[in-house]
């Protein structure tokens, strides 16, 4: 029983990263109709930024947790203004290709400066050690990640549901033409929303740094899994993307724990789930039907 709870907890922590990345992808997609391939690269930059700040300037984890999302959010807004914005009127596939190109560039920039080997990042002292949950112990840092992510998702939930900007974003996501027809200036929110999505990716990266190996390729494989996650949840649905993120994290952790003889299972289970969802509900678990083709 305690083993099961521990695996479940691990799954939720793994799912938290998927959820953060999927959330960013979903708000960006909702507002701009852009699937940002570079999301994984920004996650990597978040982790690498935290590592470089600590190693070369002695900036602690807590400061990096604020600095990196802000810096990457600004970088994202600059990128949106400079290039992505030029292609939003065209087919979304063009921006997919553009951000794919940006991914290769960002990855190689980091690779040529720091090499491909993984670097360790020490867990901040306040969060080392374990928390005793009675039935099992759990690393404090993981508890922190989970709590932080859940709070963050709840905050985003509140902003989307209760504030004016949230209403504009939801309206623009669901009925872009109608929103414009009501005289709401959707355009002025596009850049900030893009920056916010990127900041979430950067934040996930900083959170990942003490837990996972920091290397230039850490984001690339992850983003493909996150694509599968948002296909499962339905990219149009912000709630669906987050829920699918946690769900896939859980399934992967259980697969890892109970089918440990088959490492392939936990790697590929997400794609199998995606195939099943495509068969059963092509629009995703929480997505709306597309126009039939």
């Amino acid at each position, binding site marked *: 029983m305690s083993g099961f709870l521990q695996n479940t907890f691990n799954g939720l922590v793994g799912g938290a990263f998927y959820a953060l990345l999927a959330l960013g992808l979903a708000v960006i997609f909702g507002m701009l109709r852009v699937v940002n391939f570079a999301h994984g690269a920004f996650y990597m930059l978040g982790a690498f930024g935290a590592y470089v700040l600590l190693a070369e300037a002695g900036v602690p984890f807590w400061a990096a947790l604020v600095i990196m999302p802000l810096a990457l959010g600004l970088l994202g807004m600059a990128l949106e203004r400079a290039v992505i914005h030029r292609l939003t009127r065209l*087919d*979304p596939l063009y921006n997919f290709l553009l951000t794919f190109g*940006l991914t290769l*560039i960002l990855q190689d920039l980091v*690779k040529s400066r720091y090499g491909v080997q993984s670097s360790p990042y020490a867990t901040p002292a306040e969060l080392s050690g374990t928390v005793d949950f009675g039935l099992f112990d759990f690393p404090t840092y993981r508890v922190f990640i989970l709590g932080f992510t859940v709070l963050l998702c709840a905050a985003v939930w509140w902003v989307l549901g209760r504030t004016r900007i949230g209403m504009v974003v939801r309206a623009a996501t669901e009925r872009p033409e109608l929103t414009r027809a009501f005289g709401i200036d959707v355009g002025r929110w596009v850049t900030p929303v893009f920056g916010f999505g990127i900041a979430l990716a950067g934040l996930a990266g900083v959170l990942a740094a003490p837990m996972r190996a920091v290397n230039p390729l850490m984001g*690339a494989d992850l983003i493909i899994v996150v694509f599968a996650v948002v296909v499962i949840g339905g990219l149009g649905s912000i709630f669906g993307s987050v829920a699918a993120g946690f769900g896939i994290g859980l399934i992967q952790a259980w697969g890892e724990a109970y089918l440990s003889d088959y490492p392939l299972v936990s790697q590929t289970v997400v794609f199998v789930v*995606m195939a099943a969802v495509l068969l059963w509900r092509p629009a995703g678990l929480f997505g709306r039907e597309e126009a039939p*083709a």
Partner: protein
Amino acid sequence: MSERTERSEGREAMPGRLGVTSTVDTSPVKKAAPRSGLLAVARAPGWVRYALLAAGLLAALWLPNGLYPAVAVDILCWALFAVSVDLLLGFTGLMSFGHAAFWGTSAYVTGLVAIHAGLPFPAAVLVGALAAALLALPIGYLAVKRTGIYFAMVTLAFAQLVYYVANEWRSVTQGENGLQGVPRAFFGADLTDDYYFYYAILPIVLLGLLAAWRIVHSPFGRVLVGIRDNPARARALGYPVHRYKLTAFVLSGFLAGLGGGLFAVGHRFVSLDVLHWTTSGKAVIVVVLGGIGTLWGGVLGAALVVRLEDWLSFSGFEAIGLVTGGIFVLVVLLFRRGVWGTVAHLARRRGAARRE
């Protein structure tokens, strides 16, 4: 949403196909959609088309004399790969971002067959391509349930699944070491020299390209274009849209497999790179650089990208991704018609000016 944008892509990215046009308007779908990309194509006079064909064949015959033969072999393989991607992207309106799955699967199967069965290499490549087509069947069946950007994400994800499987299945694929020593057996002929190997595979590649051309210009191909331009209308006319898309997907997988198998024999070595997502992405950008929906543009794109990468690695430049990524960004921002598309566009404009 994706329906709408697919159609607008048709207008924006179908600059016309100088030299390969035989737009006999057979399909009722085409008549119903008079503003689609195909009908906007200006027909080049016959002699221009034959001259271009002759020039292309001459260039293909001359290629290994002007470049390193190994590079020329790569160009041929990538040309097939690009054309297979364009068959979907340009003529069916589906962007596969996971074609490395078929290219790579065929490379592995070809390699294994050539090593263990000792078949002549064309037979091994054929087995590889059939394996790729077989794999394309389930992946395509699931993927064609989505369109537009979702199709790209789904194919990318399935290709990653294939990558993981190949990575774990070490007893067969040798994992990170790769398959080594893929033979070039061909009835005792000595093909170890890349120069002669180039001429040995040229007929196969030309056959593959011819097949792609036949597919595009068959009634089946017309229906595909009709689906691309207006899926709802094609469905209303009674065409089983999903089945057409799936057939195109499997045919495309076969062609990609043909290229991948030749690539494996050409390099005498298969590594996990052939299945990596960057390979899928590179195939798409080769097509965009050459010109989406131009078929032969992909061949040009392949020649340009392979030559450029060879030149970069020869000059000791490490960060090839920087250049490939840069090409992606520049092409998508500034050069969406691609090489062939731009040439066709200019020729059409000149033609229009002369008529006035």
